[in-house]
Every structure is written in C-alpha cells, then in structure tokens.
C-alpha cells in the first residue's frame, strides 16, 4: 500500500517516533540513491552496503532534519557524505580536502544546454564518460543532469556556495569533453 503523505510529513512522523514509517522513505529513496551511488562510486559490489549505511545515518540523525525544508536534498546530502567517506576509505591517496572553487563567489550562469535534445544528449555522454572523471566533477554532473536536482539543492547537498555549482558544472563538462577527445571518440 502506498503512503500518500509527502516525504516531509513522513519524516516528521518518524521524528515523532513512528520508526516503521522510515521504511516508506527507504522505498522512495533507495532506487535513486543506489543509482546515484553506482554512478558516483564507479563500483558495483559495495554500493548496496554504502546505501544501507546512508539510510542508517539518516535515521540516526532524523531529528536534525528540519521538516520545513525539503527532505530530498537532506537525504541526498547524507548519502553524498557517505559515498565520499566510502571513496576516501578506498582511495590509495588521500582525497583532496580543500576545493579552490569554494574560495570566492562566481556569477550564477545557468547552463544553456538544459532543455530537450541537448539535455538528453548530455545525459548519454555523461553515462558513458563518468568513469574518466574525478569525483568532484562526477558528483555535480550526476546530480544536475541525471538526478535533475536544482542548483540550490546541489549546493545544499554538496555544502558549497550556489555559484560554485555553476562553475564546477562548466568545468565538469569541459573535463568530460576532454576525456572523450583523449579517448579518440567524437563526443558531438
């Protein structure tokens, strides 16, 4: 049986002690987070465990969630942090902590290739080329083009200024096209 309540209403009920309702949130978000995790982590075998860890952390911290805010970016942020920790645990070299893109503000230039055929084409390019990109660029491309999150939500998920999302997205696309060029594949 499906629950007609919104994510925010269900999260509020879980905060009040209806812990079984957390299962509804898992049903709603597990496919999205599994898909995000597979794309972001570039590994198949551990994704299920990492997604499970993300839900456990979300439940442990559920009372930190503000029901006046949308639930989705909050859940994605916890998942994202869990994925980043999983990447760090697997990395032979430490993952760079400081990101110079967050140093100053950037003008909010919205991507132009947002609509219709261009967006579909971009999605296909991203799906095929993700493995060649660094996590910093992978995450923003996945969240914007594949998970269809807004700039503001991406900023909240990644905990960076919203202007940084725009500049990182542009650099990620450039890196993707470079990766195609290096592979000798015509991207466009």
């Amino acid at each position, binding site marked *: 049986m499906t629950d007609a309540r919104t994510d925010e209403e269900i999260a509020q009920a879980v905060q009040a002690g209806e812990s*079984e309702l*957390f299962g509804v949130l*898992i049903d709603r978000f597990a496919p999205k987070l599994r898909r995000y995790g597979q794309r972001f982590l570039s590994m198949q075998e551990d994704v299920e465990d990492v997604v499970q860890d993300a839900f456990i952390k979300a439940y442990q911290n559920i009372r930190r969630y503000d029901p006046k805010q949308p639930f989705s970016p909050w859940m994605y942020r916890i998942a994202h942090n869990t994925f980043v920790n999983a990447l760090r645990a697997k990395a032979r070299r430490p993952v760079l902590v400081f990101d110079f893109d967050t140093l100053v503000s950037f003008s909010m230039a919205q991507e132009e290739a947002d609509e219709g055929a261009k967006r579909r084409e971009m999605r296909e390019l991203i*799906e095929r*080329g993700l493995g060649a990109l660094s996590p910093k660029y992978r995450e923003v491309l996945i969240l914007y083009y594949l998970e269809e999150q807004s700039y503001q939500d991406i900023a909240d998920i990644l*905990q960076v200024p919203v202007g940084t999302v725009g500049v990182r997205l542009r650099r990620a696309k450039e890196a993707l096209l470079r990766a195609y060029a290096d592979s000798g594949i015509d991207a466009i």
Partner: protein
Amino acid sequence: MTMQENTDRHEDAAQPAGSTRERVLAKIRTGKVKAQSRAHIALSIAALIITALAILAVSALLINYIAFGLRVTQRDALLGFGPRGISAFLRLFPWPLVILDLLLVGVGEWLLRSFKFGYRIPVLYLSIGILIVVAALGVSLDRATPLNETLMMQADRHALPQPVGAVIERLRAADRPAQGVCRCVALSVGTTTITAYDSAMGTTSTYTIVLPRDSRATTSVRAGDVLFVAGDTDDQVFRAYGIRVIPRAQTIIEPLR
C-alpha cells in the same frame, strides 16, 4: 573502466529496495540503530557553537594583545621613520602571533561551515568577514576598555596566574638596542647627541644617541623625557634615524625613575 562498461553497469541499476529496507528496519527494531535524542542534538549543536565562539574569542584576545604590544612598545612610531623605519616595523612585527591568529580564524571558519549560512558564503569572504569582526573586537578591547592597563598593573604586582602574567610582562622586554630600537630616558640633551639610559630587565645601560642631521629633537627633547629611538647600535653609541618623545600618559611600561 571503459566508457562502454560504465554504461552497461548502470543499465541494471534498479534493484528492489526490499532488502535494504528490511535490513535497516531490522536494526531499528532490535535497537541496534537508534535515532539521536533531541537533547543530544541540542547539546552537540551548543557545543559546536560554544567551541566556535571560544576560538573566535581567543582570536580577538590575541589581536588585542598584538594591538596593545604595538601601542605600549611604540613600535607604530617606526612607520613614520621612513623606509628604514617601515622595514624595522615589519621585521619586529609579531608575525608568529599573526599566524597563530590566522590558524584560529581558519578553525573557526571550518566550524561555522557546519551551518547553512557558513557553507553558503565562499570560504574567502567568510574568512575575511571573521577576521574583520575579531580584529575590530580585539582593537576595541585595547582602545576602548581598561583591560590591558589593568592586566599590566596586576602583572606588576605579580597578581596574575602564569603564564598570563609572563606574557604581559614580556612586553617590557620587547625592544632592545641590539634589535635596532630602544625605549630610554633622556639624561641630558646636547647639540647633536642625547645621553639616555635604558633600565629594562633590571640592568641599566647608558647610551649616547647620535641624532639624524636634520633632526629637531634637540629642541623638543627635555631631560627626563621618555624616548623611542630607532637606529644602529655600536657599543654604547646609538646612531638614530628616528626619534619620538613618548607622551607621559603612554609610558606605562617604562621603568620607574
């Protein structure tokens, strides 16, 4: 991983959420996983805020100490002594304290990034904002409150706990002629020289201060004046390139005569 493998891997990404759901709910039901209580969350947020504020307060106190040090040692006078004075000012500036303060601001900034307003502001702007606030607080503490003068008097009476007392007392010995600057008391004033003594650190040394050629110091300095002098020391002769009479109200760290 090739691009084609990457595509293939994502095509069967959709799996039933049932196993994840059951495993997570089983941990919740058995009590292995518990939601943090509101009290625990409130306490952890309060601890974070208090830690951030404490770090920023220490940072402001450090700036207050730097400002007090510059004021009472009269080193700011060096900025009016031309290029050599500016060079000496930069050389004598307490850079380790500034670096320590920047580190504290960095830690404070990192803690504030846990909050939404913190990560929404670019790192550089937030850091500069914090620095301006703590600098304004620190300088205000020095200029607008009797805090430092009170501490200095208590340090004189050895009434401050260590190491605070020692830190305040250190300002007395901040400048020595070997460093190219000295605070000393004029004994007699000649046409091109001033005889002065410096009695900091419990030992008294008498210097002959050779004045710069175009100096008007011999007309403005009186015996008994407290002087701040910048120059080159050669045995007991101090060849000055800058000299300033310290107003009596600002001589709180001068030795008693």
